[in-house]
């Protein structure tokens, strides 16, 4: 059974695109067939984070409008053959993304892949609603700060009302992914704690991804962090989150660095 997963947040810049790439790659690295779909029309970035920007020919709107076949628009990852990306249009009009067209493309993607992961644009408008409409599952990316938590709450409301599942009287399976978490600041009580956020949003926790320079380095070189730095803390958090998405029951822990002398000696900057 294929699953459609939306990665959403309401608030911008919290780590949706980073998480789409990392979770998509982690699921693909476990052998499942995965496509990551960029819904951020006009501001596409998933191609850059995945290192596919030089290979984009057609995009989601071309497929929706029938200018290209789906198979012609999909770009297969060079490092992981079970991972593909469907880019967003950089220039075309957002309104070109019709609901019927998107529905047709989503059906076609479901047939080809085990996981269809949709990277939502920020906001709560049409673009975000189109990205979530077909979702069976949602990853709500939240930073431990007040405005992000508030926006996540609004997105949860939309997931419960404006999706196909909701219209059919069912529920989208929702998971909270806490990103850019700084354990030191949390210890000093300068940041909302994991428990605080969970208590307010009351949806199950998928993982805690720490603030880490490995995320930035990976996006510089154009690779999901799970491919570029698979042993780094954020990558480990994403690998575990991917296993939970696949149905494994794993305890969520706050990621901490355990570095030995040898790690320190051989650690090189990338």
């Amino acid at each position, binding site marked *: 059974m294929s699953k459609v997963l939306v990665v959403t947040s309401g608030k911008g810049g919290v780590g949706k695109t980073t998480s789409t790439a990392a979770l998509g790659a982690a699921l693909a690295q476990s052998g499942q067939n995965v496509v990551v779909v960029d819904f951020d029309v006009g501001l596409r970035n998933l191609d*850059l984070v995945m*290192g596919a*920007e*030089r*290979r*984009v*020919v*057609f995009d989601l709107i071309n497929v929706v409008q029938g*200018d290209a*076949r789906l*198979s*012609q628009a999909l770009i297969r990852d060079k490092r992981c053959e079970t991972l593909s990306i469907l880019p967003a249009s*950089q*220039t*075309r009009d957002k309104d070109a993304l019709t609901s019927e067209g998107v529905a047709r493309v989503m059906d076609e993607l479901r047939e080809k892949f085990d996981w269809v992961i949709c990277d939502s644009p920020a906001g709560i408008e049409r673009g975000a609603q189109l990205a979530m409409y077909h979702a069976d599952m949602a990853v709500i990316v939240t930073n431990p700060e007040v405005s992000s938590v508030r926006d996540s709450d609004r997105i949860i409301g939309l997931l419960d009302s404006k999706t196909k599942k909701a219209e059919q009287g069912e529920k989208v399976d929702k998971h909270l992914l806490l990103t850019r978490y700084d354990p030191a600041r949390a210890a000093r009580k300068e940041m909302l704690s994991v428990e605080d956020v969970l208590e307010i949003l009351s949806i199950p926790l998928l993982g805690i991804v720490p603030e880490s320079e490995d995320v*930035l*380095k*990976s*996006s*510089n*070189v*154009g690779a999901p962090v799970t491919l570029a730095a698979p042993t780094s803390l954020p990558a480990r958090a994403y690998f575990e989150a991917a296993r939970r998405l696949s149905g494994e029951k794993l305890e969520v822990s706050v990621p901490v660095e355990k570095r030995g002398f040898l790690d320190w*000696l*051989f650690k*090189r*900057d*990338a």
Partner: protein
Amino acid sequence: MSFLANIFARRQQSSSVAKDRLQILLAHERSAGGESGESDLIRQLHKEIMEVIARHVAVDQDKVQIKVDRGSGCSMLEIDVEVPQELSGKRTS
């Protein structure tokens, strides 16, 4: 190189990789009417090449793969057309 120099040798900094990638991408996005100009050109080339091929072979659009690789200074355009069995059979017999 000595053992120590080896240990402390650094790989190319990720920021310089980022800069190279951006320069290539933006050069393409800014040139010839921007990225849409470039995709229009690719679409036109694809259409005309397919018309020529269609005069000789019946091709299934789903069996046509189009790839580009934008480089610095030039791009590679690759169109793969799967030629139906009967035709390639006729040629060899």
